[in-house]
């Protein structure tokens, strides 16, 4: 499976300009041999991340956006030689007047396209510099889905900071976790790498190794009103090793070749996911089936109180 992770740097709110730029990137990728199977783009890749109230002006209807992407890919392809490709893209979604921070997985063919899955971000950061829940609604479902390339799951940015999310995605059968993200870089004390980038890398490697999954992380780039999106897109194999990574700054493409059979080899070597599948019902039962008093105690526990931002 040949993958391009596109680390893009949209112009804030300039949707048409950003779509044209994506068309130019498609033109660069569409003619390459061997063909790409999957192209992954970051969160909010066509608008920029911090939109505040402009979310309502710029949100996309998912079917219309998929059609636009399909047309863009076909227009960028060599004449009479459109190769099928899957595209993952993060975008603000208008679902009949309810707004989400979403990402979808679209399979594009020579004449049409099909949305295979839409994931609506479940964990909306609303603290410090983040204000998502003020403007968009929470997604309510985490699903793994079948694609032509195998079983996958999408997690958007903070979704992937909660260890239970990749865990449940893997339990539901995902072999590839795709993480579109927009992460403002911070922390310059450590030598050579932003602290926020290091944190991302550490948690993603840990999920990949524990569950035996590939992780494809696409980070937005560019500065948005002083907040620098810290790119650092990467691909991690099911052994937890980084296959390739991009710099924090600037627009780039990361090209990787993945063999999904590595998932079985990794899981045979370290069968933690199988162990978890056996024990998980007991673990979840201890959380959900306790007495009302126990649940109240849990929900009021200091560990669940929000700290200082």
């Amino acid at each position, binding site marked *: 499976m040949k993958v391009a992770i596109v680390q893009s740097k949209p112009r*804030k709110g300039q949707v048409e300009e950003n779509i044209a730029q994506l068309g130019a990137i498609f033109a660069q990728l569409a003619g390459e041999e061997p063909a790409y199977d999957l192209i992954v783009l970051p969160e909010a890749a066509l608008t920029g991340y911090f939109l505040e109230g402009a979310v309502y002006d710029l949100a996309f209807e998912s079917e219309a956006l998929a059609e636009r992407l399909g047309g863009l890919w076909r227009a960028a392809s060599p004449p009479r030689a459109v190769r099928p490709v899957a595209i993952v893209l993060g975008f603000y979604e208008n679902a009949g007047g309810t707004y989400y921070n979403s990402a979808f997985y679209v399979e594009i063919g020579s004449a049409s396209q099909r949305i295979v899955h839409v994931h609506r971000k479940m964990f909306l950061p609303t603290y410090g510099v983040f204000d998502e829940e003020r403007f968009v609604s929470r997604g309510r479902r985490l699903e793994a889905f079948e694609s032509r390339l195998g079983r996958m799951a999408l997690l958007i940015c903070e979704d992937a900071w909660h260890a239970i999310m990749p865990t449940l995605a893997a339990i539901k059968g995902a072999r590839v976790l795709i993480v579109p993200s927009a992460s403002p870089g911070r922390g310059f*004390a450590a030598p050579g790498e932003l602290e926020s980038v290091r944190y991302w890398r550490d948690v993603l490697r840990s999920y990949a190794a524990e569950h035996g999954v590939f992780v494809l992380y696409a980070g937005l780039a560019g500065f948005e009103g002083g907040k620098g999106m810290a790119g650092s897109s990467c691909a991690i194999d099911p052994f937890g090793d980084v296959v390739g990574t991009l710099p924090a700054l600037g627009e780039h493409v990361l090209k990787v070749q993945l063999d999904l059979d590595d998932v079985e080899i990794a899981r045979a070597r370290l069968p933690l996911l199988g162990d978890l599948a056996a024990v998980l019902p007991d673990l979840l039962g201890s959380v959900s089936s306790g007495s009302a008093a126990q649940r109240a105690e849990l929900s009021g526990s200091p560990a669940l109180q929000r700290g200082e931002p």
Partner: protein
Amino acid sequence: MLDVVDATEPRIPALGVDGPLLAQWLEAFLHDEIVVRRNTYRAVLGLSGGVDSAVVAFLCTRALGAENVHALRLPYRTSSPDSLVDAQAVVDALGCRCRDIDITAAVDGYLSMEPEADQRRRGNVMARVRMLVLFDQSAKLGALPVGTGNKTERLMGYFTWHADDSPPLNPLGDLFKTQVWELARYLGVPERLVAKAPSADLQADQTDEGDLGITYAQADRILALMLAGYNDAKIAARGFEPREVALVRERLDGTHWKRHLPTTAMLSNTAINEFYLRPVDF
């Protein structure tokens, strides 16, 4: 007896910065904000002879090239001659453009009508005249004004409101003073500027640390703990003087207003920045 690893020392925030990483980041910030977002390619800044504006001049030169950086030396008749010399050392090191505009006539023209004005008022008038010059030169040169205020002076309220803080861009505003010093040494700012006692140079023999009543080294670490959410008692328990903790707390809590835009009476459900919300780069 077993060996004991003693890790009971109170933890103080480490304020070190990685110079190359930070310089590259701020260079990208200036390039994105000036060239990509605003479609211009020149910057203008006041060069005081102090370390903050020297660092900004170095960063702007990295981002835009020396020929696109317009430094202004803006002396008043009481300014220290050393300030002019130190500012010149920066210009010589970078090869950027530089012009001297003496603000004495403008400042004294107004103050001649306010002869009783004390040093604080006089200092604020000088700072505001410097900003007037900076913005007018911006219009003349087609260059974006770049600010030089650091996080310590912003948090301590040690600046003139709507003067030092008014340029549309500021690369240093989230760096404590001690971090600016570290960045300056990495960038190659002349050591004399990094080592000398920081001063607003609004009156003779003035130093920041004398005005503030605390060293930057102490103030920065106390501020870092306060911003992380520690109360005064917990900070003092980490070995800081309660008098200094109280001094910093008073300055921090007494100046929140200086870190905001003017307070507007909200009258509708479309009040700007209350209900009508658009990001600065939209």
